């Protein structure tokens, strides 16, 4: 079984001057390709820090992180940017769309930062439209984020996360701001992506959401406390 991401004894310390906060204290975990994982835990347990490290937004203080066969724990800032662009798709709790852009332009944003900076071709444009259609926004292409509901905005974010065909999709409480009906739609979309073979790692603290994933990781005090359905 091929691993999408492999973490070995990852530690993350924050130097706050007077004290050193150890947000992660040695996390070792493997994510096989096609996995659908929920990371759970109380606030301060280190789950967000773990997600940031997985997404290449930060570097671990110690440890080794293999992503798609590359060790990314010691990369430079520019190389990390490239990893984020090519191998990671982000979905955030608060959607994080760019307000002055339309739906289609928001989906295109990662394409602007592709290596070599090629121009956006009509093929790229069609891919964006296909993705928008797939998440059910074919008739909203020229709307701006403020004209959309929360569920629709999150679907734009999912389409954007898919545009560069990443190895892993990282979702930080993707349904946290949504009502249960919309939550259901988003979860179905994510399940659909996972069924296509995409690896999805999701931070959540809702049991109902976590229950729909294949695997749950419970974190406590910067360490993995257990796996399986919580409370399990």
């Amino acid at each position, binding site marked *: 079984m091929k691993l999408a991401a492999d973490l070995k004894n990852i530690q993350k310390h924050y130097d706050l001057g007077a004290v050193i906060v150890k947000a992660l204290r040695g996390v070792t975990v493997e994510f096989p390709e096609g996995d659908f994982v929920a990371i759970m835990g109380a606030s301060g347990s280190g789950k967000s820090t773990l997600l*940031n490290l997985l*997404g290449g*937004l*930060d570097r671990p203080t110690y440890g080794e992180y293999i992503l798609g066969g590359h060790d990314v724990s010691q990369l430079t*800032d*520019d190389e990390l*940017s*490239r990893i*984020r*662009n*090519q191998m990671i798709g*982000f979905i*955030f709790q608060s959607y*994080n*769309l*760019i*307000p*002055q852009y339309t739906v289609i332009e928001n989906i295109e*944003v*990662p394409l*602007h*930062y*592709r290596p070599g*900076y*090629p*121009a*956006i071709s009509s093929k790229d444009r069609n891919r964006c439209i296909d993705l928008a259609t797939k998440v059910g926004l074919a008739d909203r292409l020229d709307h701006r984020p403020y004209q959309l509901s929360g569920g629709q905005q999150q679907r734009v974010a999912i389409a*954007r996360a898919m545009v*560069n065909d990443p190895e892993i999709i990282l979702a930080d409480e993707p349904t946290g701001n949504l009502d249960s009906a919309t939550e259901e739609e988003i979860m179905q979309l994510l399940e659909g992506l996972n069924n296509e073979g995409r690896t999805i790692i999701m931070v959540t603290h809702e049991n109902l959401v976590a229950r729909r994933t294949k695997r749950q990781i419970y974190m406590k005090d910067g360490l993995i406390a257990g796996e399986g359905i919580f409370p399990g």
Partner: protein
Amino acid sequence: MFQTIRTIRLALKSLMLHKLRSGLTMLGIVFGVFSVIAMLAIGEGASAQAQKQVLELGATNIIVTSVKPPQGAKKDDASTRVLSYGLLRSDYDLLTSNIPTITKGIPIREIAQEFRYLDNTIHGRLAGCTTDYLEVNHLEMTRGRFLTESDQKYMMNVAVIASEIAESLFQYNDPVGKSIQFNGDYYKIIGVTRRRTASAAIGGSLSGQDYNKDVYIPLKTFQVRIGDLIFQRQTGSFSAEEVELNQITLQVRNKDDVIPTADVIRETLGQTHGDKQDYAVVVPLELLKQADQLRLIFNVVLGSIAAISLIVGGIGIMNIMLATVTERTREIGIRRALGARQRDIIVQFLIETIVLSGTGGVIGVLMGLMTPYTFIGIKLFVDKFILNKSKGVSEVGRIFTEMEPQVAYWSLPLAFGISVGIGILFGIYPARSAAKMDPIEALRHE
């Protein structure tokens, strides 16, 4: 390339989000660029005027004038009550006959005089001169004719008067054919010259000349009727001056001969006058070169004053860009998460600043091109609304009338270049601070 076009479009989009803010920020640069161009235009106009004045003196002319020696020099010599100085008729003959490069010479004798017609009197300048005086001083006739060779030869009692003399002595009557009285004699008026702008004083060597209060008579008539000796009566004393010629204007064959000829003249006069410093040699061509240097200094000073306002505009841009960066922290975080490198963020904000300052620069250049028209507008406004009640030529109106800005075309790309440069200079810091942000913090920013 595609990336740049894309980034420019992106920048325009972001700037259009805050139209008023972008517009006001741009205004700083607009006025900065405009004032650089306008200031240089004023400087250029002033120097063009100076050059025109020098050229009116004639680039191929050399002017030799009499200079009254310092009073103290002869005070102990009580026997000579009569102060005798200046150029001699023999100097004139010597210069015109012995120097081959000199093609023409005009001897001039002039005094201050009161002129009379019936009950009207006016003070002016009486000049004895020759036929060529008209041409060399760019004078034109409105009525009658100028002095001729035969007037000279027969020492005729004829006079040509200037416009202001004609106006005040004859009002609406035609002066030609009438007689003007001065120094006890009557002179028949044969012509009137057109109004001419007064020439300004150039340095300390040549005093300004108002051609509109002149009366011209043949030089020989002057010598015979008035003579070389002029008495001045003052309370308690009187003094006399004896001067043969006040000025000799010499025309040289071509421009290249001017400087060497001037040297020869200085040498010749040095021999005949000895150490008596009672003459001066003025070379308009030399003055022209001085005027060029002066223009450079003038432009640098005015330009740097205007450049200060450009810097103020640049600070305005930096201020707004810093605010924009803070405001868009979250957008920066999103872009970083989606794969933007630090460089990409720097380029994005820098281009935004350059678009802002560049657009301001273009508008400023367009406004700068309008400078001469703006001045006409100010002139009209001042005349119409501020001075409509007061009569006569106002001082303010005159200042604006005399200023004729000329847009220096080299200043347009210069000012535009500076405005873009200011955009880069003042945009670098905000752009760098945007790029240096921690993406995780930026994403969390509300």
